[in-house]
Structures are given as C-alpha cells and as structure tokens.
C-alpha cells in the first residue's frame, strides 16, 4: 500500500530525559472531598511513587480504596488537593487546561466501563479520529483526512479489529471488542503513559486474558509505560513490573511484582495473595479478611488496617506506620512487617 508520509504516526519527540528520570513522579498527593456536616472524605491520603519509562506499575486494592481516584488525578482529570504530579520532569499539578492540552497527547487513559466511555451516538471511526482533529502534528499543522484514515486503519490492525468496525456504533460490539476500541483510542495520539483504570474487571474471564495480553503486547512493541489499576492480583501479576498495594487511600506495600506477590510483608497484601483461588485440589484454605473496608470518611486511628489485621498490636491502634524501605525496591507501611524468614 502506498500512503503519503504518515504525518500522524510521528510521536511527539521523545524527551531528552535519560533513563534515570522517572516518566511520572507522584509526591505526597492528597485528594479530599468535602461532604455535608463538615466531614471530609480522604480518597487519596498522601501517596508517593515514581514510574520509570517502560515500566508497568500495577495498582491494586479493594474497591473504594482510592485507586481510581488516584488514577484520575495522575492525568489531571481530577484536581489534587495537595501534592505534586510530575510528568516527564514537568510539574503538571496546577497547569491550566489550556497549557496542559498539548501534554495530554502523551498521557492517556483506558476506562473500566467500555460502554460508558464511548459516546453511543458516534461511529467508532469518528470517535477515534476526534483526538487527531483537535491536536496538531508535531510541526504544528492539522492532520490531513488522509493521514487520519491511515492512522485509524493502523490502529484497527494494532488492536486486532476489522476495518469495518470503524463504520459501526459502540452498541454493536461485545465488551471485549469495545475495550479494544478504547485501547485504540488511547493510542491514537501515540502517548507515552497509559493509565488503565480496571480495564478488564468488567469483562468475562476468558476475554480478560485476551485484553491483558493485548496490553502486554502493545507495551512491549510500542515501549509504553502503564499504570495498571486492578483489584485482582492475578491480572496484575501478568503485566506489572512493580506492584503498589493500596488500602484506604494510602500505599501499604510497594515493590517488584515477584517480591510483593511471593514474599509479601504487609498483612493486608498477604491476605490479598491468599484470596487468589489456587487451581489445586486440596490447596489449603485461608481465613478471609474479616469485616468490611472501613469508610474513608471515618478512618481508623493509627494504622488504617488495624481493625482487620490478624496480627494487630496495641501500637497499631495509636501510631500510623509510614512507608519504609525494608529491602532494596521493597517498601512497606507496617510496624511489624512479615519478613521473608518468617513467611516462607
């Protein structure tokens, strides 16, 4: 096929940043909502982490722990209450939308609800072309209709959908296919960072694997960086290089995927890993966590997890632990972390 020079394909210039500079740095971010009666909901309560280029950070936790709110804060879809979000060395926390808009090309999101995130009254081709119509090429020109059409075909191939899909409406697809469309839309502008907000939790298990594999393939072939949000450790294990475990608005454990999943040090992480069903007959059953996740409006004093912790001590009720390094690349927020020697 002969196409004119694919102006669309050209990604924004990869920055001068060396491999040592994180693509995304989150510093002590808070997101609070004021409720009635003077109460405040602290959805994200002091979170810090960095994501290096090419890395996949898995963000896990129960529903309501603030992981989706955090994900939206990362892309400035929510404004943070305090803290800093630094993208590629640039503080974007307070950038006005007008200045942020060109930067948005480099950071995209895939949403959980594949139906709600696609306008039901617009064809897939129209939806995918929209970002190209509002942004300009790196040399400041408009994308030509030819280049847009070419780019859309490329994307369809990338996410394994037939070209005819471009002519169709979102309701004509299955959940998995729609999520492919969402992924394609997130990739239209050749972003560097993709935040995936529970992209597979609404899908059938068989389809989940396909979509996670697609994410993994795209990450490798396009050199993408992901923040991959999930409540399912099995999903995160497949794709993440590092894992952050969130509980009630804070990160309780952060480390390499293997370390966190096989040698978890926080009692909460241990409970999560044990909650993953094992396909082995006679595999030992573990007592599930007791009780519900406490309300983020009235958080427990001291360590937030002490109300449900199987190893709770008096100190936990009064003093909040901070995220501390217990090994290289492994940090835990617990007064009595379970160390490798005791937890085999």
């Amino acid at each position, binding site marked *: 096929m002969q196409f004119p020079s694919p102006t669309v394909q050209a990604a924004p210039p990869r920055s001068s940043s060396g491999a040592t500079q994180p693509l995304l740095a989150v510093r002590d971010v808070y997101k609070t909502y004021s409720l009635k009666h003077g109460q405040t909901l602290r959805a994200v309560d002091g979170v810090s982490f960095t994501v290096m280029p090419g890395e996949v950070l898995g963000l896990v936790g129960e529903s309501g722990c603030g992981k989706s709110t955090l994900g939206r804060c990362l892309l400035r879809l929510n404004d943070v209450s305090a803290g800093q979000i630094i993208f590629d060395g640039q503080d974007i926390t307070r950038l006005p939308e007008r200045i942020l808009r060109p930067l*948005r090309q480099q950071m995209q999101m895939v949403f959980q609800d594949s139906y709600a995130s696609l306008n039901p009254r617009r064809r897939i081709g129209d939806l995918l072309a929209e970002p190209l119509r509002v942004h300009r090429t790196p040399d400041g020109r408009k994308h030509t209709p030819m280049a847009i059409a070419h780019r859309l075909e490329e994307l369809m191939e990338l996410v394994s959908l037939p070209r005819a899909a471009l002519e169709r409406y979102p309701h*004509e697809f299955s959940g998995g296919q729609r999520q492919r469309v969402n992924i394609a839309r997130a990739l239209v502008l050749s972003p560097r960072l993709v935040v995936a907000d529970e992209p597979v939790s609404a899908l059938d298990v068989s389809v989940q694997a396909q979509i996670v594999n697609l994410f993994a393939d795209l990450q490798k072939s396009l050199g993408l960086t992901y923040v991959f949000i999930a409540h399912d450790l099995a999903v995160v294990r497949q794709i993440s290089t590092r894992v952050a475990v969130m509980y009630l608005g804070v990160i309780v454990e952060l480390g390499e995927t293997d370390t966190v999943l096989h040698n978890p040090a926080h009692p909460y992480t241990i409970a999560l890993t044990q909650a993953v069903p094992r396909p082995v007959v006679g595999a030992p059953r573990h007592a599930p966590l007791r009780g519900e996740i406490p309300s983020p409006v009235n958080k427990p004093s001291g360590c937030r997890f002490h109300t449900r912790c199987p190893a709770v001590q008096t100190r936990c009720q009064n003093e909040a632990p901070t995220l501390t390094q217990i090994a290289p690349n492994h940090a835990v927020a617990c007064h009595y972390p379970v160390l490798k020697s005791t937890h085999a």
Partner: protein
Amino acid sequence: MTKPSNTHKPSAGPWASALRSLLRNRAALASVAVLAFIVVASLCAPFYARHIAHTDPFVSNVAGTIMLNGQETDIMQPNDNPLHLGLSPIGPTGHTAYLLGADSQGRDIMARLLYGGRNSLLISFSAAILCLVMAGTVGIAAGFFGGVTDMVLSRLMDIMWAVPVYLFAISLSIVTITSGLRIGPFVIEADNLLIPIVIIALVYVPYAARPVRGRVIALRQAEFVTAAKCLGVPRWRIVLRDILPNVSTTLVVMGPLLMAMALLAESALSFLSIGVQAPAASWGTIILDGEGLIYTRPMVAIAPGLAIVAVVLALNILGDGLRDALDVRDASRRE
C-alpha cells in the same frame, strides 16, 4: 447484542434506525397523515377561497347572496324563532360555497378555517422551534458549565416558572398588542405574527430547559465526556460533539409536545383577541367569532375546535412515537 459481521455495509445511524422504528409505529404514522392533511389543506387556503368557494374570507359580506339549488339565498337569514326576530348567518350549506356556513360578518367559515390553520400552525411550529433553540441553549449552558452560570439561569427559569404560563403570556401580549415591540432600531408592528411567536416560545422555555439541564448534568458526568477531556478535546467542542447529539433526542421528542402546547396557547391568546389580529384569522379567532353564535350556528365554533383537538392529539401521539423510536439502545435490542 449483534456482533459486527465482516461485511462492509456501514451500520444504520441512530437517526436512521429511529426513523425505521417510527415507520413501524402505526399510531404515529396515522398522526403524521392527519397532520400532513391539515397542513396541506391549510396551505391550499388561497386556492380554495378563490377557485372552489369563490369568496374573500377577509371582507364582510352581510348583504351578500349565494345561489343554492338555483335559488338566490341571503347569507344573513331571519332566525328560526316564531317571530323571526333578528338575523343569523347561513348554516352549513353542503355546497362548495359556505360549506360550513358563515360567521356573523357573512364570511365563509371553511375558507377562514383554512386561512386560520395557516396562522395557527405557523405560529405554533415557529414558537416550538424557537422555544427549543432557547431552551436548548439555556439548558446546556446551565447544565454543562454549572456554578454561577447554572445558578443565574436556573433562578431565572424558576421565576418564570412561578408565574402561571397563560397569565404570563397574556400580560406580555397585552403590553405588546398596543404598541408593538421596539428592539433597538427594529420595530415589530402589533399585528405581526412574530409577536405571538416570540411570546409563546418565551413562556415555555422553562418547561423545556429544565429537562435539558437535567440530561446535560447527567451527561457531563458520563465517562465518555471524561474520556474526551482526557484526549484534550476543548470544552466547546465537547458540548457540540458529545453533549448536543445526546441531548438532541430529548429536544426532538419535546418538539411535537411543545408545538401542541404552543397551539393551545396561540388559540387562547387569539380567542382573547390578543393573539392574531383581525381581519387575519386563526383557529382561536374563529372560535371567538363563533362564541356569539353558539346556540344558533354552533358549527362556527366547533369546526376550529375540532381542528385544534385533531392537531393536538396527533402531535401528542407523534411525540410518544418519537420517544419510543429515539432510544438508541432500545433500537439495537429490537433488531
């Protein structure tokens, strides 16, 4: 849920599939036929008056005569009471001339009914469109921008809402009917149809704007709007490309219902002689003409009354049909 086949046939858009499901709705089709008949008949009013009824429905004809069955008959006839006191206009003749009889000025009711239909339908249609445009703008602005914009617009709507519609319309009409409307250098004469159109559109704006605002508030939270923001789509473009197409169904469904309400309002104002001004006719003015003849020549008031009922009923059925047809997800389920 149908999965895309491998054919290259583009799928029907939401409007096309809505039209298809509307075409399967017999009640809606029947009402469209009724409306079409009345509109076409009204458009033919000058033709009817000149070539079929041979009459000028805008000139008083109390001394005139017509030929009925070879006999010259007075248009104003002595009453049927024993003493034959007073005169009544001729009743329905069953002939092309004065088919439905005459009014107290000896004018052909059928011809006036058709001319009146032109004005009534034109005013109610234009008022409905104008109202939808204003309500759409107000509702989208209030719903999407929220905050102070929403507060100012919503309070303004509440104030208008607090005044009874007809009282509001009557007050505005009385003010404008004497002096016309002066907007800067433009003067709209008191007998201009624009005056009832603007007044009727204005008084119904709160009724149409509120549901639009509610829909927009829901849409603003929709994930596809967040997705558009995430893609860097400017706000005005989100309004035009993502919000408006989803609100347009609400507006389209409201259209016929608004037109029905506008028709009733126009008839009411004209009946009170503060709408369409004599000698022009509207269904409301003809009912007013028939008021004094209600015991002797009830057809003068009944004919325009029936026309109003037919149109309002048809518009309501059409509105219901549109509401059923325009649910996108429903349409996909039915196929």
